């Protein structure tokens, strides 16, 4: 079995954590992702933008009671990329395909 290349967009600790969280929920607010990943707001914001630029996330900015709110949702492309990433990981963890 050949080793598949790991998607560089997902093969980063924080971006992978964000996508893994969003794969299990319908949508999540920025503060939820920050709380669960223990990342700094600045770093998280940069990584979310990278995922958004890759077409993996839909990011909606809105106001709630005059406070800005950022809502993130995984896209179909993001789900497919995540599934491919997991399949690729399996080739590394189980190279004989057993």
């Amino acid at each position: 079995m050949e080793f598949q290349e790991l998607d560089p967009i997902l093969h980063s600790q924080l971006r992978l954590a964000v996508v893994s969280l969003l794969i299990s929920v319908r949508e999540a607010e920025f503060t939820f992702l920050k709380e669960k990943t223990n990342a700094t707001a600045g770093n998280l914001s940069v990584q979310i933008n990278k995922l958004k630029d890759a077409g993996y996330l839909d990011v909606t900015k809105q106001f709630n009671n005059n406070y800005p709110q950022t809502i993130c949702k995984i896209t179909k492309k993001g789900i497919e990329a995540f599934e491919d990433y997991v399949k690729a990981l399996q080739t590394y963890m189980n190279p004989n395909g057993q």
Partner: protein
Amino acid sequence: MTTKNENLSPTDSMQLINSMINQAKNNFSENGFLYLVWGWLIFTCSICHFIFLKLDLFKQPEIVWASCWLAVIFQIIYLSRQKKKEKVKTYSENIVNYIWISFGICMFIVVIIMSKTNNWPMMNSIILMLYGTPTFLSGIGMQFKPLVIGGIICWCLAILSVFIPPIYVLLLLAAAVLAAWIVPGYLLSTKYKLQNKQ
């Protein structure tokens, strides 16, 4: 958490994915408040209706159920405020919400059918059966056993209700909401408080 990827081995990646999925899965947002509001309201209305009928206190003892309309208005306001506070929306919560919306619609249709056919003695038995369905499905969706058990108890009481005089079915309604909403409501509340303490 950082953005480094040099040291991220396949095992690390898998562990990270598992840990994040579990974190999202264990995020329990149901605080049980509405189960308690409706549970205590239906419990009180059933007992009052039974006492009024038994002691022949009022000409129209069923008037106590009008208080449910106030609870509907309260629920709409409460849910619209809660929605603004939500940090995350899960798939199971979405399904559970639609289950309760369909329950509300079914209740409305049952009231119309019963009032049109004048078949009021049957109404409480059907309501008991209807209480069971969303309670059971919510329990399955939320993986919360007390609601599943509560739903099954409602169905058992619905069967029992056809074998006893209609007036005592009101007491079965009280027992049903105690088992299906009040007890699970307090357990949900405790679970929610414990999660938010951590």
